[in-house]
């Protein structure tokens, strides 16, 4: 099991979300975050006084999948998140030790996503 943590542009989220849904990966979480990277800050002026804001808003996606599905998720994010300009964000992959479904107490990979393969594995 792997967790994908991606920091992306806001406008990239909808296409990524739509494609992941159609591929059978409905389970993910997002948060609005602010962070800094190589992208430059924005300078604002309030009645003449300057303020440079180095932290830019991004969307953070967290998504846990079976190891065999990992590259499907990563490729989808790379495909829709890339504009080629500085500030497209980053994707991190982390190992996950265990997963439990709270409703039933089940554990393991079958608790993740609704991918047809995962569903079959759960049934078998």
């Amino acid at each position: 099991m792997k967790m994908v943590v991606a920091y992306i542009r806001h406008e990239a989220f909808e296409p990524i979300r739509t494609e992941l849904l159609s591929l059978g990966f409905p389970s993910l979480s997002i948060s609005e975050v602010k962070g800094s990277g190589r992208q430059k800050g924005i300078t604002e002026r309030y009645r003449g006084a300057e303020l440079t804001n180095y932290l830019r808003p991004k969307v953070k996606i967290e998504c846990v999948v079976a190891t065999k599905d990992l590259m499907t998720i990563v490729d989808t994010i790379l495909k829709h998140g890339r504009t080629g300009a500085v500030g497209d964000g980053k994707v991190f992959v982390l190992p996950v030790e265990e997963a439990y479904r709270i409703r039933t107490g089940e554990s393991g990979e079958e608790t993740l996503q609704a991918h047809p393969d995962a569903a079959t594995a759960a049934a078998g």
Partner: protein
Amino acid sequence: MRRTILVRGALTAIVGLLALPAAALAQDGPTLETLVSEVNVTWVLVGTVLVFFMQAGFAFLEIGFSRGKNAGMGIAKILVNFSIASVVWWAVGFGIAFGGGGWFAGNSGWLFQFGTSVDGAAATGETASFFIFQFMFCAVSLAIVWGTTLERMKFSAYVPFAIVFAGFIYPLIAHWGFGGGLFAEIGSGVQDFAGSSVVHLTGATAALAAVILLGPRKGKYGVDGKPRAIPGHNMPLFGLGVLILWLGWFGFNGASTLGTADNRFAEVIAVTNLGAAGGVIGAMIIGRLMQRTLDIGMIGNGAIAGLVSITAPSGYVEFWAAPIIGLVGGLLVVACVLAIEKKLDDPVGALSAHGVAGIWGTLACGIFTSPRLAEYVGIGEEGLVYGGGVGQLGTQAAAVGLTFMTVFLLSFGTLAAIKHTMGIRVGEEEEDAGLDISEHGMYGYPEQFIPSAELIGYSGGPSSTVPPAPVPALATKESPA
């Protein structure tokens, strides 16, 4: 000028005649005539102030319907457009609208000031009250134009269009409708008391030209072409805008009597309120039926539509007709917002609330105008329900058609020229970031966009002012995690 007042049926003939020698007698102390003039002017200026306040209504309505990243720009837009229009109206707009002349446009009153010749008479304080009151209508019309352009229009494009609109397009229609021009010569005269066509349809028609040239906001239409809501950030602010507009409308219609003669203004204000109420009720009913919900934005738009609908008839109809006219306006606005949304991205519903309701209000005169008031104002004939035939309705329809065609051609031409020279729309990146930061270099709600981590600590962080706190032993021992 005096002709204008008479044409609008604003002062009775007697007051008009009495006002003329008023200036000559002023040095002998107040006379009945000067007092009558002063009372009239006082009411017109109260109306002026109320109509000015409608700018705040438009600002809040539009800001409430915008996303938080485009909230601050509404203030800059309203202030700049109003100010440009003020100067242009003073220099040329008033002259074109009310400077006498033939059916097409006025030909005097440029660079208006005391003593300026306006339609053959020297301007007085009374003329000045008319000048500033009528300017507020111009400013309202211009504010309506930008309703469809929220969240994507380039700020610099406002400037040239505001100049052309306040200097020529609006004054031309105002001359036709209010200044004794073309509309006075159709049939027995077009009935448009306070400007359902002249002000609201004019603004909405230019707004239609703008939205066609601008295109929709990013994210409004899916790849399948279906529209999606882009919710505004503050419904209470929108509601405040609606209520301020409602208040302002008491001056908009009520002071279009241009005086206090026969206390007609009280009737007009009561009729206006009934029209607005009808609009809210109509929008509530049809909204519940069509959308299965009591949509706050639709109910607010119903109030605006009711007010726009009753604007032309407010000086011509009896009380009983007002809620009916407003109700139909409220029904129309909801149906039209839903229909227009399928093709055009109009974030506030200006095309429906001002355009469609403006057309309906103008036509409603041909249906509901009472013989008593047609005679009192001295324009047109009674409406259908009083057995007046379809003649007046045809006259009203002609005014609607002429207004729409003229304003659309002029506005589309002007905006297209702006589009092909300086551009009319911000780039995609600016639109994503929001107009507040990309056009104005600041946010309307800074703390929503600037992490407080970046604001505090600039003077050196905690250690520079406060000694490091001792680490409490308990925190580690009883930590719940």
